[in-house]
């Protein structure tokens, strides 16, 4: 069927590790990545978090590289724009385009590299959380952080029905393709519009069936959470703390490092 992030979150080698420790590690790394002023710390984070995802959580490399390619391609495009449009300093390279001259200057290049490094570090950390922690444990963590219950309950149901609608969208899409719904650009557009409207209506109906289903089981405004949780081992807490301190130190020490 689908190849979803969720499937990996459910079955990976770090599945039973405490969600708190995984989220602390991921969020901590993201913060250090985006607050660092040079590319050194973010690149270190990107490398270590990738290793953690690939080796500790045993996520297949093929999947992981395909996942990273998406944000990375965005980062490269925007970095190129930033490199040419930004800054002052020594001109490294210039190019004639449509009658205007574009200059590549040191400041711009440094900013572009920093941008890529931060994106990369941040995405690697985020994918670490996404690939090792099932949504449901994230919900439990949010609850213990005193996020209002109605928001969490709503998110849980939205999460549950994403998969129902994904399946449905998939079926409708196949039905359209079978009857050449993508024969031309125009018919593709029409097919897409039809898919969207049908999906909207069926989600509405699903909502009504949901109310009946909840009512017939005596709904009284309560949706429980999984009670049991995996406690983090002291060694894990120490390891994560050491890692975050080390990364932060790298970030501070490398603040004056310049590429060019």
């Amino acid at each position, binding site marked *: 069927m689908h190849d979803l992030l969720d499937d990996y979150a459910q079955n990976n080698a770090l599945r039973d590790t405490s969600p708190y420790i995984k989220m602390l590690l991921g969020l901590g790394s993201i913060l250090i990545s985006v607050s660092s002023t040079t590319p050194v710390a973010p690149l270190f984070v990107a490398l270590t978090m990738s290793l953690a995802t690939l080796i500790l959580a045993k996520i297949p490399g093929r999947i992981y590289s395909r996942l990273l390619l998406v944000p990375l391609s965005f980062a490269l495009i925007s970095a190129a724009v930033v490199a040419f449009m930004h800054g002052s300093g020594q001109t490294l390279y210039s190019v004639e385009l449509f009658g205007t001259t574009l200059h590549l200057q040191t400041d711009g290049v440094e900013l572009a590299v920093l941008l890529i490094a931060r994106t990369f570090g941040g995405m690697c950390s985020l994918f670490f959380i996404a690939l090792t922690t099932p949504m449901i444990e994230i919900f439990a963590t949010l609850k213990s952080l005193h996020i209002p219950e109605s928001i969490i309950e709503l998110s849980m149901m939205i999460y549950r029905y994403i998969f129902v609608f994904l399946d449905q969208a998939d079926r409708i899409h196949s039905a359209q393709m079978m009857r050449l719904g993508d024969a031309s650009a125009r018919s593709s557009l029409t097919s897409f519009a039809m898919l969207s409207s049908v999906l909207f209506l069926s989600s509405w109906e699903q909502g009504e069936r949901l109310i009946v289903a909840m009512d*017939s089981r005596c709904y009284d405004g309560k949706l429980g959470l999984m009670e049991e949780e995996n406690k983090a081992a002291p060694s894990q807490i120490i390891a994560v703390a050491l890692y975050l301190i080390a990364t932060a130190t790298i970030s501070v020490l490398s603040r004056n490092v310049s590429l060019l």
Partner: protein
Amino acid sequence: MTKIIETRDLSYSYGDGTQALKGINISFERGKKVALVGPNGAGKSTLMLMMNGILRPSSGEVLFSGKPLRYDAASLRAIRRAVGMVFQNSDDQLFAPTVYQDVAFGPINLGFSPEKVKRYVGFALRYVGLCGYERRPPHHLSGGEKKRVAIAGILAMEPEVMILDEPTSNLDPASSEEIMDMLDELNHGGKTLIISTHDVELAYRWADEIILMKDGEVVRRGTGQEVFSDVDLIRDARLKQPLVVDIYLELMSRDIVRGSKPPRNILELCDLLQPKAREGTGASGKIYICDVDQIPGGEIQALIDRASVSFIGGMGTAAKALSERCSISLDFTYGVIDKCILKALTGKSALIMTSGGMVDHSQHRIQDYCRESGAEIEICSLSMRQDEIEKDMTG
């Protein structure tokens, strides 16, 4: 037999004026297995939705244990707890992100304490054979597993009556049979069961009573044999004869068999065709019945090795779980007693693995069969002591 649910002149019209039910007067007896059959649009689902107060009748009333249903919040809670409903599409019913949360939904909303919720969920999941699935999200389950979770979610609320709308639609044959076997187990545990189905074979074999509906009315109720031998009635209701009945009617018209009513199953059909076969003395095999709750897996394995057991049947969730644990391959997983009798009649020995009240049920069923048909099948119940079994096997 006491009546648990009753309807009086029950009518229902949808918003657009179509009359889904037209003055239904019907009663359901406690502890029975009832199947509602009928073509699409006969009003089966509408009737079911009325029995736990989801739909409110346009006129007439529904009675539960002799008292008319009221539609205030407290009464609705009480009736929905007592009459559990399993929907046709499991995805409609499983709305929580994990199996545990879904099964816990009812108990939590009934205001049980966290420990009690945990205990009830544990019990329900064990019952449907899904221990260890607590943390799985529903979209990672197969169709049969989803149906089991849906049933567990209702079981955790301890209903007296369970209503299942098309419980086997969209399931593969093995999963359907397992679900139906589980429903039998629930029925032995004292639950009243009402299902709706298009599957005539299933309804005929499983139900104590068939209620045939058409165009919002009950056209016939009775045992499977009564309802399904009426050829015209069945055709008008856009159903078909179960295969056994079809064969029986054809054999009757050729004067090959004679009987007052059609056989319920293959066992009865075989007896009709070959009534003398079992009079051969000593030819029939033994049937061993073992209670998996009392006898450890190793001992069962040893028995299978020593006694010449040719066929093994597993009845109920506990037996199936044990057979999986001890890698005992089961030849029969549904209709177990009948199949084992059939094998015993051909001189082979069979073992029925089961548990709880179904141990006695199996024994009585076989004894009843022997009394009615005059066959002699030796039953060896394995709740007796080991040395007795050995004596029994050697002697």
